[in-house]
């Protein structure tokens, strides 16, 4: 066929056209695929580069998706280990999103479903911040990783196992009739008591409900402006008056203070005096000292009385004697002179 000379030129031209068509289609397909892949890797549109720092990136790789509020907006460009605990994730995002991503947006590591590949979620911040710029580092938020989640779940499971074991024991005991709960379940008397209690509770709650209604009425009245409480709550002049009264009371109290202090002092003195007096009286009572002896000793009292009578009698006699002495010629002159001086002193002032 290759060496057949008939119509070879025409056929060759047609074949070549078909070949060209095939080659063109294939190359176009390749270019389209390359463009699509490139556009998803944000290669041809201008890019916005931001980064965030994490302690753990949970297996994130360069090329993983970056989502902003759940929409794919770019890819992870590179991961850089900054030091022994921090990893910087550099992201390449669509430039068109720049006005929407603010400086306080928070990046976190997530995964696409339970078994999907890892990705970076950027969530809008709460405050009103300015738009992010090229090279910015936005804050990050470390979520609980799947491993930690599973670890916690494991611990929880262990605890649940322990708890169910305990529960099993408890239910066994209940079935056997041990303990309060068993009593509660099986004792009909107790059940009656409980029913009664519940009935009481219900009555109480009814009563409470009625009280509540009354309270409601009162509050309604207060709201309407009846009574003292309402005035206290709503009338502002009452408060002013109260304020004035209180300030007056304050002044009075200030003035009273020195009096009170003096009173206090006096009371203290009185207290001291009364203490001394009490001591004296006690001593007297006990018969201590001459006065006590006098009070307590009846013989001494009789003697004293006798003495006083004698003294009385003696002074009466002494008075008679003195009278007699005035009239005695030896002393008459002196007494007359004394009487004259007395008269003089009475006239002078």
């Amino acid at each position, binding site marked *: 066929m290759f060496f057949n000379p008939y119509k070879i030129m025409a056929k*060759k031209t047609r074949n070549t056209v*078909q070949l060209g068509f095939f080659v063109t289609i*294939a190359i176009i*397909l*390749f270019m389209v*695929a390359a463009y699509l892949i490139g556009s*998803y890797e944000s290669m041809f549109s201008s890019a916005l580069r931001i980064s965030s720092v994490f302690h753990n990136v949970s297996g994130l790789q360069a090329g993983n998706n970056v989502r902003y509020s759940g929409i794919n907006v770019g890819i992870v460009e590179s991961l850089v280990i900054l030091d022994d605990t921090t990893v910087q994730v550099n992201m390449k995002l669509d430039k068109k999103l720049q006005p929407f991503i603010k400086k306080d947006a928070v990046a976190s590591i997530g995964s696409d479903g339970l*078994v999907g590949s890892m990705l970076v979620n950027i969530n809008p911040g709460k405050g009103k911040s300015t738009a992010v710029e090229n090279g910015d580092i936005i804050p990050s938020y470390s979520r609980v990783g799947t491993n930690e989640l599973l670890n916690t779940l494991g611990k929880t499971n262990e605890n649940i196992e322990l708890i169910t074991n305990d529960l099993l024991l408890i239910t066994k005991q209940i079935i056997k009739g041990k303990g309060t709960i068993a009593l509660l379940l099986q004792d009909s008397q107790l059940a009656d008591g409980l029913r009664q209690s519940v009935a009481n509770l219900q009555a109480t709650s009814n009563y409470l409900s009625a009280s509540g209604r009354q309270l409601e009425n009162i509050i309604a009245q207060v709201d309407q402006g009846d009574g003292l409480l309402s005035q206290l709550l709503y009338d502002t002049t009452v408060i002013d008056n109260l304020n004035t009264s209180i300030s007056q009371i304050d002044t009075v109290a200030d003035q009273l203070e020195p009096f009170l202090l003096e009173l206090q002092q006096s009371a203290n003195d009185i207290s001291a005096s009364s203490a001394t007096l009490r001591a004296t009286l006690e001593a007297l009572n006990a018969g201590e000292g001459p006065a006590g002896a006098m009070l307590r000793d009846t013989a001494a009292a009789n003697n004293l009385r006798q003495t006083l009578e004698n003294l009385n009698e003696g002074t009466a006699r002494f008075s008679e004697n003195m009278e007699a002495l005035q009239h005695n010629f030896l002393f008459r002159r002196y007494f007359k002179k004394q009487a004259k001086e007395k008269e003089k002193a009475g006239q002078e002032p």
Partner: protein
Amino acid sequence: MPGAPFPGNQLKEYFRQTGEVWLFTVRFFREAIRRPFEWRELLHQCYTIGNKSLFLVGMTGFIMGLVLTLQTRPTMEEFGAVAYMPSMVGISIIREIGPVITALICAGKIGSSIGAELGSMKVTEQIAAMEVSGTNPFKFLVVTRILAATLMVPLLVIMSDTISLFGSFLVEHFKGEVSFRLFFNQIFRNLTFGDLIPATVKTFFFGFAIGLVGCFKGYYSREGTAGVGRAANSAVVIASMLLFVIDFIAVLVADIFYDL
């Protein structure tokens, strides 16, 4: 080989053939860059290898995509990961299944036809006749065929990939009600240049291996018509084997250049 009843002889025969293949390859490159170029014959061979194989390759590609999706879908459904079907199918077809299956089919169709054609030319002494008539048979027959295979197999792979993805889409569309746009969005979102470029580059090597083995076996076929059949047969067998070796090497190399 009939003259190799002992293992020692077989080994010797293997090394002899390897040496001849190497010399053949070196000769190909030397002839390929030396004027005059056989443009017309190259285009003719491209047409024969490319367009004439398109239906076969397209058909197998379509069925491949269809079957791959149908077979994988129930398992993915079991895991509740049916949403990952497009990306999974896309990555496996673009990276591995498309290139390798298409190249194997090309090895069967192109490799055998080249082997048989050149073998029959050899045994009917047409090649000798060309040498006498002043045409360089190596340039005219071998260089054009190897070049055509090297250029056309990648294009065939691209076509096959596209058609099999379409087949996969049909299954997804009718079984999972996935829209065309979602399907291709999913595929290209999960594909990277690290998937596409190595997969495409290795298809050039596939095409080169198919053309080289077919030409070598045909060019050096002996012992009459039986030799022609043997040439065609061994061209397919060796080319297919070589494809997997190249694929393995390509994956290793791609592993170095891309973080897979």
